[in-house]
């Protein structure tokens, strides 16, 4: 049985890395990491630059700095004035954007391949020459406050995640919302951002990832040519993100723009620190088995079987710089209470913790993992994002296969052990109720 499985896995790996997937890596003398993967399916290129700075690097009272600076990176240098970066990329027919996470700020462009030299030149230029005006800063902070209203204050799901983060951890850096708290968004100064830029935007704090119809070696040389002149910086000391051992369950509720109560159940669990860890791989498989496909336990038993929920999902991020949670999100069916649904979710987890999973169920999860990996290769953006994640978190792109191998090798016993980690003391439980329910509760109290 085991022999057959290994053979099957070996066969699949041959598919996972097709002939075109030549990947090269270099680290420039100034510390810039560069990864280039060839993908010759279309004459286009995806370029992403990852700066290792995000909300976990911010201090109390200055939340939202990294994200605000991401916005300002489009506001000009002496060579490429405000608004010109985006105008020039658009004129190439390119698509561009950026995002900030708790741990990274990423700028990405997707365009026909012949534009790569120009794109890299502009990216290198704004790594050192950013020079935004106070006027642009003031206007952009208004935009960011609107962004916060739209994506957090008025959005029940994102609002719930913000609540969860805030309650899950003790360290302020781990609790901070990426976009920043509204009072901080009123208080940030242009000088704060300029200082943040000087501190963190440096080649030795960045990873350049390029995937596309390019020659890998020539592209490494091209990146060297465009970025080599930028000097390295002494980076500030990182804040310690390590949390104390988890001691007790946390729960909270809030009221938001939702018609039906919705819930988010997180468990503070380990994530992958070195390739030799074991538990994270098992947690990844556990998330697949519990909730990530149409025959998963949640779908089969709770959404279809007992019909307790409209929607359910489980997810787990295996690699990050920040402590992670195993997330379960759910919306109970009308007439089903969140407490009842939570108890049923816990019963599903307890069942695996007590009785484990069957070999057939495990085999199914492996096939799903393997196919999803192959499916994900259809998108150059996904490929680049995965390479960027590995490289900016202290792993090496060449460990990609080994990482998948280890996920596929997880045993039923390891999954059972992982399920035992999802205990009440690790729990963070958030419920978002409709505003109308708050009014009802108040009305009852007044009687």
């Amino acid at each position, binding site marked *: 049985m085991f022999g057959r499985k290994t053979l099957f896995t070996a066969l699949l790996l041959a598919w996972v890395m097709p002939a075109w997937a030549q990947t090269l890596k270099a680290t420039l003398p100034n510390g810039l990491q560069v990864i280039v993967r060839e993908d010759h399916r279309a004459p286009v290129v995806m370029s992403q630059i990852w700066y290792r700075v995000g909300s976990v690097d911010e201090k109390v009272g200055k939340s939202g700095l990294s994200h605000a600076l991401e916005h300002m990176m489009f506001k000009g240098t002496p060579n490429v004035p405000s608004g010109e970066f985006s105008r020039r990329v658009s004129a190439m027919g390119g698509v561009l954007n950026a995002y900030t996470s708790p741990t990274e700020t990423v700028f990405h462009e997707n365009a026909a391949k012949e534009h790569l030299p120009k794109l890299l030149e502009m990216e290198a230029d704004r790594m050192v020459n950013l020079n935004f005006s106070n006027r642009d800063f003031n206007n952009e902070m208004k935009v960011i406050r609107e962004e916060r209203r739209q994506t957090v204050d008025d959005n029940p799901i994102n609002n719930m995640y913000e609540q969860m983060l805030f309650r899950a951890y003790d360290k302020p850096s781990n609790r901070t919302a990426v976009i920043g708290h509204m009072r901080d968004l009123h208080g940030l100064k242009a000088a704060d951002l300029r200082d943040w830029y000087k501190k963190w935007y440096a080649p030795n704090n960045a990873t350049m990832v390029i995937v596309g119809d390019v020659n890998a070696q020539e592209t490494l040389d091209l990146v060297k040519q465009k970025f080599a002149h930028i000097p390295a910086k002494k980076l500030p000391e990182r804040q310690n993100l390590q949390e104390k051992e988890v001691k007790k369950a946390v729960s909270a509720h809030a009221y938001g723009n939702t018609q039906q109560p919705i819930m988010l159940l997180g468990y503070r669990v380990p994530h992958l620190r070195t390739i030799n860890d074991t538990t994270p791989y098992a947690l990844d498989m556990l998330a697949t088995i519990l909730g990530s496909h149409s025959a998963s336990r949640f779908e089969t038993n709770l959404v279809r079987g007992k019909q307790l929920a409209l929607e359910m999902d489980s997810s787990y991020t295996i690699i990050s710089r920040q402590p992670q949670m195993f997330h379960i999100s759910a919306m109970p069916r009308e007439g089903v209470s969140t407490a009842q649904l939570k108890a049923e979710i816990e019963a599903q987890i307890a069942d695996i913790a007590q009785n484990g999973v069957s070999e057939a169920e495990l085999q199914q999860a492996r*096939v799903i993992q393997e196919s999803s990996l192959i499916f994900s290769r259809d998108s150059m953006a996904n490929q680049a994002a995965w390479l960027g994640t590995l490289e900016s978190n202290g792993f090496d792109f060449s460990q990609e296969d080994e990482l998948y191998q280890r996920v596929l090798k997880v045993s039923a016993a390891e999954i059972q052990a992982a399920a035992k980690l999802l205990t009440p003391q690790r729990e963070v439980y958030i419920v978002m109720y409709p505003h109308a329910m708050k009014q009802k509760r108040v009305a009852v109290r007044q009687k």
Partner: protein
Amino acid sequence: MLRPTFLSALLMLALAPMAHALDIQRWHTPQGTEVLLLERHQLPIVDYVVLFKGAGSAAEPEGKSNIAAATSELLTSGTRLLDEDEFNQKISSLGANISGNSSVDFSSMAFRTLSRADTLHATADLLNQALTQPRFDENALQRIKNQASLSLQQSESYPSFIAQREISRLNYPHHPYGKGAFQTVEKIQSVQRDDIVDFHRQYYAQNKAIVAIVGDINREQANELVAQTLKGLPEKAASSQSVPPVDVHDSQRKLVPFPHSSQSTVVLSLPVLTANSPDYFALILGNYVLGGGGFDSRLMKVLRDQYGYTYGASSDMDAYTQAAPFTIEFTTAHKNRDAALKATQQVLRDFITNGASESELQQAKANITGSFPLRLDSNQKLLNNLIHLAYHNYPNDWLDTYNDKINALTAEDVKRAWQRHIQPEKLNIVIVGAEK
């Protein structure tokens, strides 16, 4: 061969005949199904969609909602041979995805699977069972109705959903395109098993089907795959309705209170463009300048960059068989609502009166033509292109000539087309988030 970008294409014109953008293979089965195939052998994946024209929500009888969606969802909820759990177990064990979907005009079933023969054929067999021997289980139907009802209610938590629904009601009060906007829990719950059985029998037929396939498969295999998946489906559809033209209702305005939101959502809209309109390209190109071109667009430059009113303002020029909505949307803090709306109307008026400047037009052309290769860089995008071509009955060279048609337009062409189709003061307006 993929088409080189604009500049190199110009250089090559003198040297070689125009290369085709896509090597599309296209044929009809004896039963009348149109098949489009793009072979892509670099990844061991097959993407497959079968679409049934006319099987969309526009065909639902009055007084009942969500039949088209419930039908396509029930098709993957068990067959005569396999109950719902067994069906899902099989699909998951293949590592494949299979899903039903529906729109106003059509319904579709799609799968993505590995191209290994055993996996591919097992997936195709499940699709065939789903299409031809659905179980239509009462229990599953009731669950799907409950989910649709709750999902409708939950959507009402979002101001942008309310705004889009209201504008759709104003745009299409009596037209099939508006049906979805008049959904209610009662109409969803009133659907019975017989409605689903009838809908499936009437509209899921081979002569109304379009199949699009992209991936690691050749023509002969594709032909067999189509035969395997559609075998046993009726050859001819029992009914054949076409969507009537849109009777445009304009100049309406509606405020919807939405307490607890920190922003107002503002939508301006009117039915405008059909997929086969001679003004298609002029309207698409102009829309880039007005509000479709992200940071390049006038709406973004004025509402975001100049005033800081919003995180994003955009305009969208859709094209359906009949007139699709042209829509402008933004959200802003309540206090800026009136000023932002006024600024938006001014931008629109200026644009329609004076048209695009030469430099704006050049920028729009450069982006649209330059981004052409990005439309073709994944199997998923290629599949969407095939569906688009077939659904609107465009010829194979529609993509080949796309950039030429964009490049041929002058500022005057664009202005004339916009003036012909849109009078700014006639747009319907919905504001959600106002207190009163």
